[in-house]
């Protein structure tokens, strides 16, 4: 057992046990309340650069497997758990969380009172933290945490570099502006449509030229109003007059920005699998991962209408345009095989069949 330290921006140092990769890391700490799916979380591009805390105390009770990988890489910068299993259940096989993080060069720390961290984040908002193995490095980290954080455009780190076509001969093509799209969505979509994936900074004209019948602006990490995202906002604005556009999570925020709304940082965001969203008379339990939201008041006069709300905190969860086939949802679309009322797929069906 090797010691590790979790250093918080307020100077608190918590001692734990190191696992995963032997490296130091620094980033915003966010928590997830999902009780399973740790691998899905770690590989979610929307966690890019963030240090993830699992509120649930056990991680890795079943093995890591390609099946659960959402993007081909671990995007979370670090993982904080109460306990990780060294010998997972053999039902699914796969490697241990420890080995997985090590080979992906991501450090983890266990033996931490994660509920305590959740409570801190709940009251203080996102906290900058660092994981270090070397006790001697703790003081340096304390200093480093006080410095202003680098403000990278996280989307550019996870978006694909070139256009990818996944043609399964379905005839109808859906374009995705990749701000950090995950494999799950691509897989689900390609069962129904041909899919074309565009880098986040693709020009509107190129997307139009692809023949896509509708465009999805994908989920992804970071702040939609980051200067680096301006080109994406512009593209979406141009597209929305001629093509159906559906924004997902970060993508929804981008669509809202394109229509002149204002986005803002939340205290600690929504990261979990149990966010209730009310849509009409129906409540859907959704999976979410976002730190930014759309200011509802700023929608006045933009043509966008807030029509889905978070039952718990009243934040905006979905909108549609008064006239145009433009939609946005803050949550992850449920796979159609598991949810007959999946908003995204119903909307796609509607917009793709509209012209026929």
């Amino acid at each position: 057992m090797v010691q590790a330290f979790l250093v918080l921006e307020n100077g608190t140092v918590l001692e734990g046990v190191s696992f995963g990769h032997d490296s130091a890391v620094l980033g915003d700490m966010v928590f997830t309340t999902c009780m399973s799916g740790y691998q899905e979380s770690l590989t979610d591009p929307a966690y890019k650069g963030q240090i993830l805390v699992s509120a649930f105390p056990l991680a890795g009770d079943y093995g890591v497997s390609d099946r659960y990988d959402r993007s081909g890489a671990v995007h979370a910068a670090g993982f904080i758990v109460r306990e990780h299993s060294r010998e997972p259940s053999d039902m699914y096989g796969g490697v241990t969380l420890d080995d997985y993080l090590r080979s992906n060069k991501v450090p983890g720390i266990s033996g931490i009172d994660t509920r305590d961290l959740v409570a801190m984040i709940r009251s203080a908002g996102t906290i900058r933290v660092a994981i270090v193995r070397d006790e001697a490095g703790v003081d340096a980290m304390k200093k480093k945490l006080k410095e202003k954080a680098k403000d990278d455009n996280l989307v550019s780190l996870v978006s694909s570099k070139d256009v990818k076509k996944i043609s399964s001969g379905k005839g109808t093509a859906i374009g995705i502006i990749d701000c950090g799209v995950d494999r799950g969505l691509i897989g689900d979509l390609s069962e129904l449509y041909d899919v074309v994936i565009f880098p986040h900074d693709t020009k509107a004209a190129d997307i139009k030229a692809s023949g896509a019948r509708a465009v999805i602006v994908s989920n992804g990490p970071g702040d939609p109003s980051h200067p680096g995202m301006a080109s994406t906002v512009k593209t979406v604005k141009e597209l929305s007059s001629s093509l159906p556009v559906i924004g997902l999570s970060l993508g929804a925020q981008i669509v809202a920005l394109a229509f002149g709304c204002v986005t803002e940082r939340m205290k600690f965001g929504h990261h979990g699998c149990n966010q209730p969203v009310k849509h009409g008379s129906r409540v859907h339990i959704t999976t979410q991962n976002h730190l930014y939201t759309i200011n509802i008041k700023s929608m006045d006069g933009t043509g966008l209408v807030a029509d889905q709300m978070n039952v718990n905190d009243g934040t905006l969860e979905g909108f549609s345009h008064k006239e145009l086939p433009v939609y946005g949802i803050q949550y992850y679309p449920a796979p159609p095989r598991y949810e007959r009322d999946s908003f995204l797929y119903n909307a796609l069906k509607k917009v793709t069949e509209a012209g026929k």
Partner: protein
Amino acid sequence: MKKDYRKLMIVGSGPIVIGQAAEFDFSGSQACKSMKEEGYKTVLVNSNPATIQTDLDTADSVYIEPLQAEIIAKIIEKEGVDGILSGMGGQTALNICSELADNGTLDRLGVALLGTQPDAIAMSEDRELFKKTMIRIGEPIPKSRTVNNIDDALVAVKEIGAYPVLIRPAYTLGGTGGGIAYSEDELKEICARGIAYSRIHQVLVEESVLGWKEYEYEVMRDKYDNCIVICNMENIDAMGIHTGESIVCAPCLTLSADDHMRLKAASIKIIRALHIEGGCNVQFALNPANGEYRVIEVNPRVSRSSALASKATGYPIARVSAKIAVGYSLDEIKNSITGTTSAAFEPSLDYIIIKIPRWPFDKFRMVDRHLGTQMKSTGETMAIGRTFEEALLKGVRSLEIGVVGLDRVTMSDEDLEDEMRRATDRRLFVIAEAIRRNVDTKKIAEMTQWDHSFVLKVRNIVLMEEEIKKELTPATLRKAKEMGFADATIASLRGIDEKKVREMRKKEKIFPTYKMVDTCAGEYEAKTPYFYSTYERTCEAAATKKKKGKTVVTIGGGPIRIGQGIEFDYSCVHGVMTLREEGVETVVINNNPETISTDYDISDRLYFEPLTLEDVLNIVELEDADGIIVQYGGQTSVNLAVALEDALKGTKTKILGTSPDMMDVAEDRKRFSKLMDDLGVRQPASGTGYSFEEAKKIADRIGYPVLVRPSYVLGGRAMEIIYSEEELSTYVETAVKVSQNHPILVDKYLAEAIELDVDLVADGKDVFIGGIMEHIEYAGVHSGDATMVLPPFSLSDEVIEKVKDVSKRVAIALQVKGMLNIQLAVKDDEVWMIEANPRSSRTIPFISKAIGVPLAKVGTRIMLGKSLKEQGCVGYKELKHYAVKASVFPFLKLPGVDSILTPEMKSTGEVMGIDEDFDVAYYKALIAAGNKLPKSGGVYVTVNDTDKPRIIDAVRDLHKVGFTIYATKGTSTYLRENGIPVTTVFRVSDNQKPNAIGLMREGKINLIVNTPSMSSGARRDGYMMRRLAVELEIPFTTSVNGANAAVGAIKNAGGREIKVRSMREFH
């Protein structure tokens, strides 16, 4: 939005039986609360007086009446009910409501069935309809066929392809009558049984999914089709062991997120297809080899699993289900734990829940301990921890089975292997032992069909034990505590005193921290202080203290077991309610997920924890409590009294009420005998034997029959009446081990004496006798099993005065402040002391309901210093009606148990019959307990010589009302001599026809009067007949008084119109 109803009825679940326990008092009470909150007028019906829901203020009208369709119909009419909630009283309520719907009563009376509708219930309960529905929506189910006879069952096996097959009877609870057949012979036997138990004589023969993983989903749906999953649970024991018999963890630990999504989607699809409105439980089997799953079962109502899920997550399933039933949508209902979020969400856990069943094998030593598809456990305990190991070890020490950790098992390697392959209640300990003996963990996993990762968790515990044995450094100590090790376990591994470990912990500042169960894994601030201990950085409990008035800790009763049932939880809850009324800040410690005391809004702070000295002390110290109440948690809390007082010496914390020293006087035979001698109260002669020889000498001195038992007993465990030296030697060889440390107690048995139970409250000066209950059976039948009548029906005023006098003097001498239960025997008008229990007794709820005075509330106020005079409660409560308590027994569920009543308690629950007329009250009690009292037919009489003259009148009466009398030779000769026509039958052992067994099978016998003779040979002879009576559900009585009362009931009540009266009308 909610609909308008004039009056809503909630049907309870009746007596506690295996498979249906306190969880339905919890759900019914929550439902009543929830309906009252909405402003509805409510009526509650239940036959079980030991429930909070039958308290006067739970509903506008409360009826303690037998749960039978025609009686419910009468209440509906009388009260003008126009809506019924059927889903809150388990299978019992569901069956009654289905019956009322099927026979047109509900339509005739214009009553709406709220929540899940009868057709939906049928769709989940009727195996064939269920199968069709699953096929329609494309959900996989095991291959199966419904049959009504054995020939069709054989055909079904051919279709399925191979043995083993499962047999599941339709419309039974807890899997009664079901089983696994590995061969044709077994198939025939189990099918015959299952068909007999099924309400519609139907069983399902099904493909075996033995060894598959078992997962459960608790799902909710409202009528707007919103669906949520409250909780999923993983059965650690694989398919083949009933979920009620399995160790269960929540949430599922070995299930991938993707498979979780798959099963969640399936659950929602199912609950929608079945049109369930409210809570529902879906069980899945998943083949670990290929990921295939099958839908096993759906419970279209709240269940024991939903009670567990409620406590595991903090989500009040019954409360929300009731609101859905009256028309609310999920998002219109508030999450009462956080107070801010809505009920339309799925709870997130940030801890691990472990449920472990509590089995009655300590009581039923002859019963087969193997676990299968039939439930045998009577209760369960739930533990919460931040690690699996912690939750598991806390669960183990909550069981109160005499172990605090994974204690060693003395068993040969062969037996160990056998127990791993065929599970018994010892399985967990067996696995730990196998690990200690270096059996390969993969092999253990294969033999037990546990997931390997769970075996490894047990191994972690065993490895920790080794580490502790080597050296106890502060780091080791901390690690052990984080894994849930008790101080006592650490102490015994080190061979030191437990106190030493506690001191070391304090020195090293290793204290438990308490975390909140908040439904949302900390994401929102929660307002409801519901805590569990762990060893981590921050403690959340201290911050919730109001720091104003006094704080009092009430210690609960732990898991439900035979001898310690829901009655104790009832008193705990009353105690806590009273403390709150008196402005005291209340703390409850308990670990039973079924009960009301562990509902989060009963106390100011709830700690879901084991009830050992260490766990209790930790909380008491953290709370800096002013007082502790130990009188309400049964023997569990009484046993802690002396040790708690000792540990808390010099602090401000006091044991409230009767002093622990005086409790010890009552509990300690020698001290108690001395006190009785000083008071001049007679006691049966007795002695303590430290060897067989000594016991024999005592028995010779005081004369047979004698009552024997080990010195330290819970609820009369291993207590027997012994008639001869030969029996004494058998007893010593088989039942108990006598030694210098474990002597046996030998008492003179007062044959044919009347036994009485007296419950009283005292304040040190005055005494209020709540009531004197006369047993129908002779002394020697455990008071928990005896049929009791309040007030006494056969005692002279002079004897009653004597009883009152003795009771008062004993209460004053013991300086009782609070509750006291006294058991007395009356023989030849002399009063004998049997025992005194310085605590709330099993009969407190019964008596409180019968007399209309909540004794536990009176007792609590005494403990707070309010005298009886101040409370206006002195003397003795006279009654104008009779209340009869009858017990229900688990004989049907536990093959091999003799149904004869003895000093060892066997019943699981009780009912109350109440009426102005004794015969009617008795009749109500008997039918409520499930006895099918006949109005006509045949009665089989076989009584011992002493009883013959006393049975004449009863038999004559039966003859007069038209019964055919059958009797064995001796009895029939005697009856004929007295002018009663009798058909003589052979003894069973004569092997000739007609005999009783044959007549019973032919359905010619509808009532049995059998008073066993004193010799053990004859008692064994009657065993077969009694066992068959149990299986054929023929009512039988084993005492003359019982026979007389039953005959009175048949004669004077059976034919008459039964009137229903609400509890308010009695008081």
